[in-house]
């Protein structure tokens, strides 16, 4: 039997991997994948809490998160493609016209 703490620890580790990925990686698509990892670790946390508390709210929120993540993926990938058409790169370090 896996306890709720183990689920929470796993999702916390996944969340941290996601955060580190966003901060370290330079390819916009991999950064975006890291963000998706963060969102999915939250989903795991919510489901674990939901089962532990015997309350359905958490699982309902997971459905909202999945829907929003899909919408975000559509918009995000579209932005990355549009940018690639102008600049021929998805490397964040090269996307730097704007700075002070």
């Amino acid at each position, binding site marked *: 039997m896996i306890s709720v703490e183990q689920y929470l620890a796993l999702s916390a580790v996944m969340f941290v991997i996601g955060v580190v990925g966003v901060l370290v990686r330079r390819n916009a698509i991999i950064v975006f994948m890291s963000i998706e990892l963060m*969102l999915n670790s939250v989903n795991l946390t919510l489901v674990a809490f939901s089962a532990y508390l015997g309350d359905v709210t958490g699982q309902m*929120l997971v459905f909202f998160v999945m829907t929003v993540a899909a919408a975000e993926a559509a*918009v995000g990938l579209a932005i*990355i493609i549009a940018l690639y058409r102008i600049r021929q790169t998805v490397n964040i370090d090269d996307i730097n016209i704007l700075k002070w």
Partner: protein
Amino acid sequence: MENNYLADLWNSSPIVCVVLTGLVLLLVESVRRGSGRLSYAVSLVGLASAGVLIVAVGDVAQPAFNNMIVQGPYAQFFTVIFLVTGILTILLSRGYLDRQGIHRSEYYLLVVFAISGMMLLAYAMDLIVVFLGIELMSICLYILAGFMRTRGTSMEAALKYFLLGAFATGFLLYGIALIYGSTGTTNLEQIAKSFAEHSASPMFLVGVSFLLVAFAFKVAAVPFHMWAPDVYEGAPTMVTAFMSTGVKAAGFAAFVAVFMRSFQYAGSPVNDVLAAIAAASMIIGNVTALAQVNLKRMLAYSSVAHAGYILVGLAAGNADGFMGILFYLVAYVVVNVGAFGILSLVEDSNGQKLSYDDYAGFSAQRPFLAALMSIFMFSLAGIPPFAGFFGKYYVFLAAVKADMIWLAVLGVLTSLVSVYYYLRLVILMYFREGSGDVAVRPTWAAMLSIGFAAYLVIQFGIFPSIVVDAALKVF
């Protein structure tokens, strides 16, 4: 338990009206392609009818949809801000989009859907609705920031805003999950009821700090402000106007609803953290704004500083702070719509003419616009008799009453710094010779909305009681 869906629908009718307007706009676009003028008219009518509905519904606090949202004075106050901002933005946008060659009907559709997300934030009584509101608003804005999709700066702004915004969403959600885990509910009213027993538990505090990170990001407070200057500069000017006014007000609507009305942390270390963020935002925002050449970028740093002033009210955490935040937001929103409106009129079709030097001698060519711009700058600097002065007065008063005198002193000192970069523009407009090649062809709608914004700035500066009375009713 019996649900009365008709009553729920009536209580949430302003949101329903705005969402329906968005859906009608979708249909209009799919039936008649390239129908920008029709969409313009439909969106204005839709937002105006939502305004009528918000008055008709009344200001008695009533929960709807199983306590997910609550209609009342708080929602009403903020919805009026959003609708006025939305209408002014749309009126100003049409001429601007035409000049930039991007007049497409999707623009109005996205603005209207973003407003419906902001309204959800003002109505939210549940963290799930807060999440949905923030996302509905943000996803529309990611697209709007990149609306000029052939211009590199606009797309770059969109990508930066999107990646950092989605990153902040991760923190928001993890915060909600941890709060849900420690309290067993996402409903703000129930969290407030059992707040005393959870307030010190580590998991709850981690959740609260993650929410703090996410909200600080959305209102562009230091140290989560790095996206703001780049995005404000790169996005189309009227989108920047919308971002710096409506979105900031919506961010604070959620911030205040969660941190002031639900979490009773006033006087605890959590509010000291808020005070530190406020202080850092005021210092860094104002000092960095001094060094800017581009006016959009200057206003971006100034908006970071203004987020700091509003956070002073939040850190104070008392009734005066609450009133101060509401007043400040009203003053800040009308001023910024007007100031960005003038910037959008002067900007040429290549996205140039946005620096300080382009405004040299502006008063000789366009005396009326120069006078209005001066009013907006004086109000941003907090000089009486304009609305910005009373906004600052009320938040600093709240800080003094909450025994945070250092914060009020710091606020006054940083306001003095800000006078330099606001009045530099006024001096350039009135006392320098210009090259005289600024071509401004404002539409009537644009002149009317800028004039209206200036009228409100003076009106609220001379008779602040209009807003104060409305804000006191909210508390």
